[in-house]
């Protein structure tokens, strides 16, 4: 997959060119051209805001169909912690997990379990001498990409650990090979995702990194199939192994609680995250050791590919957490030893997508032109030109992808001038006739 693969894409047929999405996009990655929204690939961070806001459901997430599992002999499902609370509380976690066997899977490995390992490793990182604080969670891929395009100074604050999804994929594969003696090439591991961002992080991982996940299936697409099998699912197999701290990761604040530092800050919703990151970048946030930042409002329970209302899901999650807590008698689950493969070795580089030119002299010329154009625009940020703001239009003009007359006010001015000129010409009579 290319560097700029994105799970978030446009369904042309449904798009009405209404400009709702262009204003909502946190990286100004959308323009409307010829009546259709266009996503500027290098700017998109797959946060899913446009999927949520589009009144015509024209923004969609590309994920794999359930049939992707047919390419493998031994299929393992990796359900995100946000899956459980999509179902009515009468269905316990174990029943939900057992239902996977009825729809074609051979095993399940809860991502919530892997989240416990990541929490543990993060705790260790935080106690290390000289670690850059605040540490920022790298679990939400939309946040990592936001940092890559808008907050390069925070790249070194990211937690250098694999996400729970990746850790789960590695651990599940290892377990199948070691305990069941299965040939690694026969094993397929499939993440059951609440979001597009995770799909992108599998199909187009950050630099120099490959994903251990073989397919990404959305909660939305698998929901009905699981639901239809819940009644009949047999619960004899004890599959629910994750502890309450891992389960809580589904909710905003859950990772912070699991990491367990007193000085953590949990922020959810991409626009809120941006405000917090601005404060960190400007040295305005003191005394915080750890930041849990999630692109979706409410955390992963609010993921764009979930089915249940985020607040209903939150209340249900509490029950799953309480049940697990009761089993653990309120204590943290004792983890099996884990290895180095949890450390994230990939490189995260700054993507200067807003740069006008690689040559600073040229960039300055363009910027000057931009300022001049901008000062002539009405400043209404109306969006009718297809750009999110007048400044963004000015920027597009100097980049050569838009025209001044894309602004309806500028166009009207031009038409008025032309009309005046025509009138003037019309009044002139040829000298031979006067």
């Amino acid at each position, binding site marked *: 997959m290319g560097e700029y693969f994105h799970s978030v894409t446009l369904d042309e047929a449904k798009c009405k060119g209404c400009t709702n999405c262009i204003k909502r996009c946190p990286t100004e990655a959308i323009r409307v051209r010829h009546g259709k929204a266009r996503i500027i690939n290098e700017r998109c961070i797959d946060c899913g805001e446009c999927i949520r806001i589009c009144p015509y459901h024209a923004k969609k997430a590309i994920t794999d169909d359930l049939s992707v599992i047919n390419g493998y002999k031994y299929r393992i499902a990796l359900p995100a912690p946000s899956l459980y609370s999509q179902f009515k509380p009468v269905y316990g976690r174990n029943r939900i997990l057992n239902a996977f066997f009825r729809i074609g899977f051979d095993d399940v490995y809860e991502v919530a379990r892997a989240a416990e390992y990541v929490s543990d490793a993060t705790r260790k990182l935080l106690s290390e001498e000289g670690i850059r604080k605040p540490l920022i969670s790298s679990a939400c891929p939309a946040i990592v990409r936001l940092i890559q395009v808008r907050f390069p100074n925070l790249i070194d604050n990211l937690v250098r650990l694999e996400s729970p999804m990746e850790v789960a994929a590695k651990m599940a594969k290892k377990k199948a090979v070691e305990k069941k003696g299965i040939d690694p090439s026969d094993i397929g591991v499939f993440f059951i995702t609440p979001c597009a961002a995770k799909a992108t992080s599998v199909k187009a991982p950050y630099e120099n990194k490959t994903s251990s996940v073989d397919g990404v299936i959305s909660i939305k697409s698998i929901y009905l199939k699981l639901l239809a099998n819940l009644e009949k699912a047999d619960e004899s197999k004890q599959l629910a192994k994750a502890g309450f701290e891992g389960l809580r990761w589904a909710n905003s604040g859950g990772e912070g609680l699991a990491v367990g530092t007193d000085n953590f800050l949990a922020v959810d919703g991409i626009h809120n995250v941006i405000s917090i990151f601005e404060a960190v970048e400007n040295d305005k946030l003191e005394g915080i050791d750890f930041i849990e930042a999630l692109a979706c409002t409410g955390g992963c329970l609010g993921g764009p590919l979930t089915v249940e209302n985020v607040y209903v899901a939150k209340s249900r999650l509490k029950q799953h957490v309480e049940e697990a807590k009761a089993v653990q008698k309120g204590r943290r689950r004792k983890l099996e030893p884990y290895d180095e493969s949890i450390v994230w070795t990939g490189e995260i580089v700054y993507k200067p997508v807003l740069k006008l030119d690689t040559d*600073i002299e040229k960039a300055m010329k363009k910027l000057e032109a931009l300022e001049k154009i901008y000062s002539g625009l009405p400043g209404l940020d109306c969006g009718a030109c297809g750009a999110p703001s007048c400044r963004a239009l000015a920027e597009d003009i100097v980049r050569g992808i838009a025209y001044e007359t894309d602004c309806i006010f500028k166009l009207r001015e031009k038409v008025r001038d032309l009309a005046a000129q025509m009138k003037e010409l019309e009044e002139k009579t040829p000298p031979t006739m006067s």
Partner: protein
Amino acid sequence: MAKSRMDLHYEIPADDFARAGEASSSVKKILVQLGIDPVRIKKAAISMYEAEINAVIHGGGGNAEVTIDADKIVIRIIDSGPGIEDLELAMQEGYTTATDEIREMGFGAGMGLPNMKRYADELDIQTEKGKGTVVTIVVYFHQQG
């Protein structure tokens, strides 16, 4: 080749906290579009922000004059406020004359001038009692020396 340079001008309104910081955030955006090293941008943005806020809170408003060329940014924040009585004292961490009201708004930790000193590559402050203050900040875009 004649080197290009950009001159920018901003007004800094007095006591308008809603708009305080607008000039420095505009300059920050411009530096990003010019493709300046993010670490340098941070230095310029934070030191300019502090000087701008001081002009709003202590200086009765003023102007920002910014010049950018390929090598550096020069930021001048000019106010015609009361001036700084004792500059040496004002430069110390924690020294502030901010009122309780201002402190309730999250300013007045006495860290602005020390932060400017920390982040600016060059800092010059000309101040005269009763006349006003001119803060000049220089940040180089490439490692110096």
